[in-house]
């Protein structure tokens, strides 16, 4: 059990900087998910915590110990890899128990630990099989079992579910969360899948090009994204982004969109936006906060595709040359080629500065 502190940690490959100085504090027992598009440095960060990559600069602490230059084996982390990384010539029992054998744990004690881990992970009947005779999900459970018996300070997961099929992924997601509740050990989990990040994390750290864009709990990320990148990355389908400008009007402020969209800005946004009068900005609206209806704040789109998802249907439309995704009722009669009005929920509008993408809200003043 331990917290993790990264202080100004950097990583260079030759002369290329992949992680600019990064500060991150992970609380004892917290489940933190590092998420971001590929190449954002999330795996590198995790591997630096594990000690598999050396940090070029900065300091790293696990609990009270400084571990910056400690070799991986001495950091008391357990790591689960995307590719499972099982020992193919050993049975499940040997795979789980190998670390204990190396550490010289007495045999009876090791057996108890292995059987305990196997019971937690439903692997008891497979203990004498080789990894080749297991399914993907079982293999990943063996890898997790290997991590559990380590009784580590920190669990590190490097995209552990990416190789599993969709159904299994959902099941394993629940199992890992249950494991966290049971063990209450600090867990750091890397994924590129924002659904995985949202559903599992106590706190999600969104990374882009090695920079932490926002670190917050899932609901905050969704409702109060720090910038346009986080807003677009979190949520599926992605938030719609419409270019425009804030102007002063007779009664308050109005948004003048580049694509002919223009409306009076609802009063709850005017305080924050009054500082940006005359500036270019981006309007963000999530598809789930739109309806197919006339009137109010909204746009007209030309529907190019419809995606019936059961509870509701997505309208993939075009506004000029920009894609716009709206949501409508499952029984919609709209077909590709139609031109339909989309109405926005005025409570759910997001505004971002056009220059740096930072959110314009009262709390970001």
């Amino acid at each position, binding site marked *: 059990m331990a917290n993790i502190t990264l202080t100004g940690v950097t990583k260079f490959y030759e002369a290329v900087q992949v992680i600019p100085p990064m500060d991150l504090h992970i609380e004892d027992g917290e489940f933190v998910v590092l998420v971001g598009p590929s190449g954002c440095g999330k795996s590198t960060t995790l591997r630096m915590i594990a000690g*598999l990559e050396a940090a070029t600069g900065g300091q790293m602490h696990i609990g009270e110990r400084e571990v910056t230059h400690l070799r991986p084996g001495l*950091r008391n982390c357990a790591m689960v*890899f995307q590719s499972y990384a099982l020992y193919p*010539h050993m049975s499940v029992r040997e795979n789980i128990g190998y670390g204990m054998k190396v550490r010289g744990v007495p045999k009876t004690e090791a057996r108890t630990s292995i059987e305990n881990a196997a019971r937690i992970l439903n692997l008891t009947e497979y203990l004498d099989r080789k990894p080749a005779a297991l399914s993907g999900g079982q293999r990943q459970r063996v890898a997790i079992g290997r991590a559990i018996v380590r009784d580590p300070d920190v669990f590190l997961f490097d995209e552990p579910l990416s190789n599993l099929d969709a159904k299994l992924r959902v099941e394993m997601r629940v199992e890992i969360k249950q494991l966290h509740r049971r063990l209450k050990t600090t867990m750091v989990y890397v994924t590129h899948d924002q659904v995985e990040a949202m559903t599992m994390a106590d706190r999600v750290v969104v990374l882009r090009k090695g920079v932490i864009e926002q670190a917050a709990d899932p609901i905050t990320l969704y409702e109060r994204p720090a910038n346009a990148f986080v807003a677009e990355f979190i949520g599926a389908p992605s938030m719609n982004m419409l270019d425009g400008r804030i102007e002063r009007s007779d009664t308050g402020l109005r948004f003048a969109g580049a694509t002919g969209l223009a409306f009076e800005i609802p009063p709850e946004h005017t305080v924050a936006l009054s500082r940006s009068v005359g500036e270019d900005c981006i309007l963000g609206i999530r598809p789930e906060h739109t309806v197919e209806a006339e009137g109010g704040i909204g746009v007209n789109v030309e529907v190019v595709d419809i995606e019936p998802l059961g509870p509701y249907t997505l309208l993939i439309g075009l506004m000029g040359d920009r894609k716009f995704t709206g949501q409508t009722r499952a029984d919609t009669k709209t077909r590709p080629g139609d031109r339909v009005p989309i109405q926005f929920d005025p409570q759910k509008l997001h505004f971002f500065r056009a220059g740096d993408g930072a959110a314009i809200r009262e709390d970001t003043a």
Partner: protein
Amino acid sequence: MSVRNLRGPRAWIAFALCCVWFAFTVFPLYWVAITSLKTPPDVVGGPTYLPFVDFQPTLKAWRELFSGIRGEFYSNFWSSAIVAVSSSFFATLLGAMAAYALVRFPFRVKLLSGVLFFVLAMGGFLAGRYWLGLPPATASILSFCGALALSVFANRLALPGKVMMNDDIVFWFVSQRLFPPIVVAFALFLLYTEIGKLGFKLTDTYLGLTLAYVAFSLPIVVWLMRDFISALPLEVEEAALVDNVPYWRIFFEIVLPMCRPGLIATFVITLAFTWNEFLFALFLTNSEWQTLPVLIAGQNSQRGDEWWAISAAALVAIVPMIVVAGLLGRLMRSGLLSGAVK
């Protein structure tokens, strides 16, 4: 398009060609086998092909072979077997270690420190020989050890010039097999004789021949094992590293078992080389540790061309390799890695 899909006359043509090739490869073996069963008049009196039809087979050559009147057959057989198996074993083990290091760890050897090694070793040898009057073996051992220590130290300094990486080192390993073995055999014989003068006998000893074979097999072992090891998934070793498994255990308990097919293939190839090797054995041994190929070659000169005796001895030399290849070939199958990743 596979040969298996051929139908009609084409299939028969393919079959016929395969038969021709089969006969082509098997005939020498057959010829040696029947020649070993012939009497001297049958051998010299023109070609005969079928036992009991063309000629009356006899076991005379075999009886002579095993009775020992044609040289110390048993002794040579066991020398061959012991030297070949042990040198292949050590070459495969050491070569696998070297290959693992070359695949997993980056090495940086500065060209200048390599040049320094060469200059110091040669200069030290000459200086020891002519200024200090040391015997050649003493001079070379001292100068090589000194040069090695100094150049390893020099490599840590900020030397200018080209830096050689792992690929260069592998090429350097393999390049040792590019020049004719006779060059090495001469040099090795001289070196062994000189070391012998210091009271440490290497010529015609187990140690001398095995050392030479290990050294000469290493390049090919490193070359082969490097490919096998670089095909192993790195994450498996990383998982062990995170679990605080020391490197030597990772190598022996995880890496070696994972590349077992490669190890066995390499061992068999090395064994074929050491079992069949003639030149080094001819130079470095004479009676006690003489190997089978030298004995077989000797049959040719002792009492003229006695092909029946040569054939019997040659068959004895061939059979163990066929047995080894047959037994170990089963273990060479791939698929051992399945289940490790993905």
